[in-house]
């Protein structure tokens, strides 16, 4: 388990890659974001996207997967209060290779809950052309190592 103490300010890690799967793009969109440019090439043709593109929320979910599973051990995460400055900068297309660059920008212990600390991350999702396609900042609540309840 990776605990609050294991992450340092300015630490930068890159996780991935993950290949964007066309069937998954369509499946996610059918369930959660059924707009025409997320459902088929034909539907996207005369739009900004030009061809089938992933829902922004799907890109965020794939990035979360990279963040949660990319480390050598499981993150002792207790959740997150939210995201800020979520920017969908460029389209994400099937067969794109995505990686997540995750930088620790700040950390501090929680005053109200001494069993955990708050770690601030800047997250960038980058494609095979080294273009940042999405970015956001977030805070994770991470258990401290001496928190036996979660060991």
């Amino acid at each position, binding site marked *: 388990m990776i605990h609050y103490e294991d992450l340092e300010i300015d630490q930068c890690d890159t996780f991935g890659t993950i290949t964007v799967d066309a069937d998954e793009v369509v499946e996610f969109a059918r369930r959660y974001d059924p707009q025409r440019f997320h459902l088929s090439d034909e539907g996207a043709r005369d739009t900004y996207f030009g061809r089938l593109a992933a829902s922004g929320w799907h890109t965020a979910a794939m990035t979360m*997967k990279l963040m949660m599973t990319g480390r050598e051990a499981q993150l002792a995460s207790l959740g997150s*209060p939210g995201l800020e*400055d*979520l920017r969908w900068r460029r389209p994400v297309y099937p067969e794109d290779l995505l990686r997540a660059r995750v930088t620790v920008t700040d950390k501090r212990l929680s005053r109200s809950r001494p069993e955990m600390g708050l770690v601030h991350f800047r997250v960038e999702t980058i494609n095979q052309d080294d273009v940042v396609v999405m970015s956001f900042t977030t805070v994770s609540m991470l258990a401290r190592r001496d928190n036996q309840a979660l060991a």
Partner: protein
Amino acid sequence: MRYWEDFETGAVACYGAYHVTEDEIVTFGRAYDPLPFHIDPEAAKASPYGRLTAPGLLICAIFMRMLVDNVLADAASMGSPGCDAVTWRLPVCAGDTLSVRQETLSMRVLESRPELGLVSNRFQVLNQTGEIVCEIMSKGLFGRREASAGAVS
């Protein structure tokens, strides 16, 4: 078809009724956010939440579905540049029914692409007892009516 001009600053709309199931939480959690309290009902009992809770991004995805079904499906939606803030305020659990309250905060035409307009909204995702479980400050891009009529190229 709803264009940029059809939104109105200050307007409030409430819509949606999305029932969240344990199966959907676990499926989404396994795929994208495999923390014990999102994928394992037994392990979740020992977590600070005491039970299975929905991943934050599942709440966002469910919000999106309600937005598409109730607003975007019949609108000249051109996507979104992003969200200034997503705040997860309360846990969402299996059995909850979520809805959306949408308040339009501001609107402007894009200088770089005058055929498009931006609409800034505050979305609140509510549970069945009216509690705000999630708040999303986001922007959406919409085609303008006169552009579609050919007045703006």
